[in-house]
């Protein structure tokens, strides 16, 4: 089971270390994107099996602690989305190609 750590720096920024054996890069980036109207993000590798996410507010007075909590919850949902999408990708492709297949081709295949 992976774990994340969040450390507050003296300058008010937070640095998260995310276990990449548990959360993929795609989920981390999608999560960060959702908060890019409020914070700046720096995403980097932090050695084997970990990613470092530095979160700094765009404006003074932003409650970064709250955003960190929301980030961590959202990260779980994004990871879940990535996994569901991987799981269902082939069926998704089948549905779309079936939906837009020319009628003649569909009739011919039956």
């Amino acid at each position, binding site marked *: 089971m992976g774990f994340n750590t969040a450390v507050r720096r003296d300058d008010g920024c937070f640095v998260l270390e995310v276990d990449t054996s548990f959360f993929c890069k795609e989920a981390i980036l999608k999560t960060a*994107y959702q908060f890019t109207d409020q914070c700046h993000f720096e995403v980097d590798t932090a050695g084997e099996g970990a990613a470092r996410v530095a979160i700094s507010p765009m404006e003074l007075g932003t409650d970064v602690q709250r955003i960190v909590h929301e980030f961590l919850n959202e990260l779980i*949902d994004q990871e879940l989305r990535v996994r569901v999408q991987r799981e269902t990708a082939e069926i998704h492709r089948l549905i779309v190609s079936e939906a837009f297949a020319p009628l003649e081709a569909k009739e011919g295949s039956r």
Partner: protein
Amino acid sequence: MIMLQQVCSGAGARYKLLPFRFMRFDARTLVVNQGGQFLVLSNDEFDRYVSGTLEIPGEVFLDLKAKHFLADGKIDLPVDILATEYRTKKSFLRAFTSLHMLVLTVRCNQKCKYCQVACAKADARRYDMQPGTAKKAVELIFESPSSDIKIEFQGGEPFLNFDVMRAVVERAEELNRTNTKRLEFVACTNLTLVTRDHLKYCQDHGITISTSLDGPEELHNRCRSMENGEGSYRHVMRGIEMARDVLGPEYVAALMTATRFSLGRFSDVVDEYLANGFRSVFFRSLNPYGWAVSRRCEVGYSIGDFIRSYKEGVDYIIGLNLKGESFIEDYASIILARILTPFGTGFVDLQSPTGAGIQCAIYDYDGNVYVSDEGRMLGRRGDKTFMMGNVHQDDYRTLFSGDVIRQAVESSCVECLPQCSDCAFNLWCGADPVRNYATQGRVVVHKPSDDYCRKNMEIIRYLFDKALNGGEQVQDAVWSWITRRPIEEVSSFEYGGKQCVN
């Protein structure tokens, strides 16, 4: 918390997950599949669903199976059904461009504060469409493969160039003798200078009227004045009355544009519409074009303020519905039809891919062809990014399969856009690359700071909540909007869709 390590069903799983998107919704989880079917699950039910641990055959399992969120056998049938549902939702793609707007002139006899076109003065005749340009445009329109053609006369004020309007109508009718398309005409007019003769012509040729009414007299006059500064309300009301008299009430529709003066007063707008015999209103926010941008400080507002007023307005209308008054908010009826019925709707501004170009096109007075009215508004400011070509220089194929329309389509599939691709609402929503370009300078916007996204997310969430949790009477009101039938008629029938929200 979800047990992520157990998400994948894999070998030995008791059922397969079928594609879906999800969203946390009032401490529960909304799941929407590719055909637009939805369920709201408790978080625990959701966790058990995705981790493959649902009780079989429990109630939740059977609900999810019936709506094709999972399959415990062969997937051929659910794939076929989901494909059919998806195709139905995207049926607007089949018809190709059916709405063709002609800017007969940029001249206008009004001077509205939020004019998105930045109209020219009423005597500036160089801004009139010439007969040769109109003829070319009509002939191009009839090359569209669509079996439905709607020609919409826009301006400025289109009745200032009535001769060309007539030429267009008569040429279109002539061409349609051999094409036999379903042909419609709409004149978007401020109605302040129409005469009975104009309206008689409209009646003879089936031209319907779409006009602007922003609310009660003092509210309407705040932003909509004649060229000399006089408020236009009395002129408009005289025009509406005359148009109703000649054409019949069902052929005259009105639109409102919300300014900072109307915020918090949408109920007054509804009362004004009702008092004047209208049965619906479209609460339309300001668009980011023309004078609406340059006068933002004077007439604009934050999107949060608009959303608040929108909800108050819809709540007010539902209250009237529950007292037996039939009245509809048109934007809500579009969204609700998308959520609660299997069908898509033809609303150009909210499609995926965008309706710009493939559902509508606009022919400017000088023959330039744009993917949308908004593209034309940018063109008026000298930015031709969304210009597909010109009727005098380009043929149909060049215009409607060129780089401009392709880029508009490619950049507007919400299924592929950042954040939208994961959004549970995306089958009911859409993208507008022209608006994106106008607001953020790029066709794919930064979603977290996009007002249009925020507006649609909040409105869809609010309407979804009404349909889901509003109770039986509110659901009847909602269905009366979708079906455009009186509420008492709707409440006596058990629609399939009513069951789906219960």
